[in-house]
């Protein structure tokens, strides 16, 4: 019934050589990270000052990496588009960070965190990387506590834990509903300490617009100073991208409005493979859209599902206020369909279930695009003060946005784009297919497969930045310093010219439509056809629509102002132009993956009761795409499951 892939003759893509080596050491999985570190070359502390690293992005991954590399004694140049590194969007992560500390003595272990993550990812993540992530998780908590991150505590002074979607143990550490903020400030403070020490220089309000590749190695970047408009080349022995995900391709998402794919997309165009671009997480608990004007969506932390119960009326079109709907006429659909996990099923499962009940006409609120998240039982059981202590800031945020009081009436929530599991392909060392280009955090693809579990993004960002990259990058740098490069090198000249030419081109179109109008239209195409449910027919249409829109963009966009000043329209234009290319690849990837797995739900592949139907025989691989200028080339990294048995995921 299933084909191995779309027939390449359809012209959308071709199939190239498989990826044979991920550089993970052989041997028992529990020893691989030790083996890798032992075999890695070291850099003599006296030589580190002569080695330079560029880090793009200052979220949890980039901030922690830059601080750690600075502490190690390397020369670090950091770039971020915001006005200070402390603003990166990790700051908005609410719920928590996982670690296999087993403080609750509830049967947790490194192996269980590893298992939960592989299973939660619906068997599309790489075992070696995930196991390392679970191992390193415990060190992260130690590091952050020592930095002064004010995690929630119990009365005895010990750290508190809670549980999160997709798991049955309590391993999530949290700082009220602002865990990301507190972890990021910890990394930011460590980074600023290195700035004071002179090892790190931060260039805020700078955006990376291209990668400089010399003799096959990443040797620098072209950046634009967003205040003066100056475009310049920056050089180093290695480049680290920590620029987050590409959820803003959908226009409406929970990402910050500035989040973009430009750094990773430009690197992709320079030769870095892009893995699993169609794996985008739609988060179940967001505040529903309120109107046309909406510029972003706001997440309500998944931790709310610990105490809130999700329901809709049993009757389609039931227009009564929630309080007027008696208990027996409510459908607690997650508890009903998934008795073992109830409201704590993984995100992809919860989102799709919410979509289904709304499609049946049982959604609530404007347009019927919402479900209730009800705290009445929890407030009755635990009292309002306990709920306020756990979720107070989230309730306030909800009230601020909707002007409704969730202590009195249930919240209304609906799924929204939140995170991208796909990203640049990296090996075990977090190195892309361009030597010297390392990719960490959400910007890479490596740890979450087809679905990320709650409280695992913060864990991965900090694991990569504090612990993994500093070891693996040292191995690469130990062969340096690499021959010096400057502005006169032909590769630099070509890259600078390409960046300048593109800016000139954007400013010169002189059409009638604003950048945002294109962005919104792209978002609608992707949401409708490459969102929670995908079909062959829809994706085929979407590819044509994205191509047509891209063509129209370059014919009819209008970008006011000049390139030599602070010009926010120009910044957005470049980002949207890249989303218009990436959007097509997302759809091609979704079309070629002729199975359902995790977030990727192909309507053609479902069980009789509507669960995702994987096709491990044909699709147990990472799809890593090569840019050609024409149809992309697919390289497959076959996934082997030696430690977690490959089986249908069930949360029933």
């Amino acid at each position, binding site marked *: 019934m299933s084909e191995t892939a779309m027939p390449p003759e359809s012209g959308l893509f071709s199939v190239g050589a498989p990826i044979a080596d991920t550089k993970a050491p052989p041997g028992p999985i529990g020893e691989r990270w030790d083996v890798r570190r032992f075999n890695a070359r070291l850099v003599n502390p006296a030589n580190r000052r002569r080695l330079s690293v560029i880090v793009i992005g200052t979220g949890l991954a980039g901030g922690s990496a830059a601080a750690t590399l600075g*502490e190690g004694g390397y020369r670090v140049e950091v770039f971020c588009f915001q006005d200070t590194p402390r603003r990166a969007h990790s700051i908005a992560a609410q719920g928590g960070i996982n670690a296999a500390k087993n403080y609750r003595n509830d049967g947790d272990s490194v192996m269980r965190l590893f298992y939960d993550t592989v299973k939660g990812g619906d068997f599309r993540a790489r075992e070696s990387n995930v196991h390392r992530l679970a191992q390193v998780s415990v060190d992260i908590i*130690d590091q952050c506590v020592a930095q002064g991150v*004010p995690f929630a505590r119990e009365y005895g002074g010990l750290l508190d834990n809670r549980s999160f979607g997709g798991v049955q143990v309590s391993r999530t550490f949290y700082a009220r509903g602002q865990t990301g903020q507190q972890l990021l400030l910890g990394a930011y403070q460590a980074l600023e300490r290195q700035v*004071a020490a002179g090892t790190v220089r931060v260039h805020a309000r700078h955006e990376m617009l291209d990668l400089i590749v010399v003799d096959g190695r990443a040797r620098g970047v072209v950046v634009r100073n967003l205040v003066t408009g100056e475009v310049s080349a920056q050089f180093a022995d290695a480049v680290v991208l920590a620029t987050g995900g590409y959820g803003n391709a959908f226009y409406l998402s929970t990402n910050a409005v500035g989040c973009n794919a430009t750094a990773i997309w430009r690197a992709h165009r320079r030769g870095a493979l892009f893995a699993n671009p169609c794996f985008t997480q739609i988060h179940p608990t967001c505040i529903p859209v309120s109107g046309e004007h909406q510029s972003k969506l706001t997440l309500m932390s998944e931790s709310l599902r610990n105490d809130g119960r999700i329901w809709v009326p049993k009757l389609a079109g039931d227009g009564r206020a929630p309080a007027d709907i008696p208990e027996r006429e409510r459908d607690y659909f997650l508890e009903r369909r998934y008795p073992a996990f109830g409201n704590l099923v993984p995100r992809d499962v919860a989102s799709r279930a919410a979509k289904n009940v709304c499609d049946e006409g049982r959604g609530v609120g404007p347009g019927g695009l919402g479900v209730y998240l009800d705290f009445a039982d929890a407030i009755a059981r635990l009292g309002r003060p306990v709920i306020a202590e756990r979720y107070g800031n989230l309730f306030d945020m909800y009230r601020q946005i909707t002007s409704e009081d969730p202590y009195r009436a249930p919240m209304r929530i609906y799924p929204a784009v939140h995170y991208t599991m796909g990203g640049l392909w990296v090996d075990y060392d977090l190195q892309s297919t361009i030597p010297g280009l390392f990719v960490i955090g959400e910007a890479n693809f490596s740890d979450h497969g087809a679905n990320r579990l709650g409280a695992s993004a913060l864990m991965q960002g900090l694991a990569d930045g504090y612990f993994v990259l500093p070891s693996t990058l040292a191995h690469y740098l130990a062969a340096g310093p690499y021959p010096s490069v400057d502005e006169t090198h032909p590769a630099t000249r070509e890259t600078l010219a390409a960046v300048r030419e593109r800016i000139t081109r954007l400013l010169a179109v002189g059409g009638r439509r604003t950048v945002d109008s294109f962005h919104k239209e792209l978002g609608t195409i992707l949401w409708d056809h490459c969102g929670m449910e995908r079909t062959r027919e829809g994706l085929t249409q979407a590819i044509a629509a994205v191509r047509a829109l891209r063509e129209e963009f370059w014919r009819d966009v209008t970008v006011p102002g000049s390139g030599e000043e602070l010009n926010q329209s120009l910044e957005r234009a470049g980002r949207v132009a890249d989303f218009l290319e990436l959007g097509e690849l997302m759809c091609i990837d979704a079309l070629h993956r002729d199975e359902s797995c995790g977030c990727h739900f192909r309507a053609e592949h479902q069980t009789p009761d509507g669960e995702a139907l994987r096709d491990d025989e044909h699709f147990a691989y990472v799809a890593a795409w090569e840019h050609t200028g024409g149809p992309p080339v697919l390289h497959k990294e076959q996934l082997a499951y030696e430690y977690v048995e490959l089986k249908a995921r069930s949360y029933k």
Partner: protein
Amino acid sequence: MNITLRIWRQPGPGRPGHMVTHRVDDISPDMSFLEVLDVLNQRLTAAGEDPVAFDSDCREGICGMCGLVINGIAHGPQASVTTCQLHMRSFADGDVIDVEPWRAGPFPVLKDLVVDRSALDRIIQAGGYISIPTGSAPEAHSILVPKDDAEDAFDAATCIGCGACVAACPNGSAALFLGAKITHLGLLPQGQPERDSRALAMIARHDAEGFGGCSQIGECTAVCPKDIQLEVISRCHRDVVTALFHHGEQQEGPPEDQTGGNLASGPAGD
């Protein structure tokens, strides 16, 4: 709703600026204030005019990037929210609303409503951290923190570094921002070894950046979107005095170049 915005327009750093009137019709009370600026910018762009430059990123009140003085109040008329979380239901149909950037010597305007707040980063660089290189941390549970201290530290740590406190302060002081960090780290056992040096270095940097002194009027806490309490300023002051005392004990007499800083000494001269 229809409203009129009078917006500060300034082409670049150090250039003269002035208020320009823009009408925005047909907006919904559910829109955020920044979404109204988005709508205005769409219209200006379509009409071939220069859109209004303003900062924002998360648009959910946590990154600290947004910040406008609205009708003379930093972050606008509603207490405890950032500009991005202010909704038009806080205004009435027909309102005329003044929109200006943060005004403070250490925050130069870059364009229109965008200012440079890097001075706040430099205050953190001076000592707003605990020195713990990656890998050197002890087991997390070897450090017990009484729940109340953890909660109070957390409250102070929620500062988003927006700079509204500076914009609101008649003296242009960043005392609330500074106090929040001193309090966060000073309340935790992990923060004790560097408590003295942190207080002295951060206050010195605060003053050197040109922020004014604090004479305790409380305008700052009234506009703070995270409700950072004035008490953090007293704590900061106490830590500085204690540090000077310890320093004096070591040096046998107060060092001449160390003072309590501008914190307690009124407006910065200029």
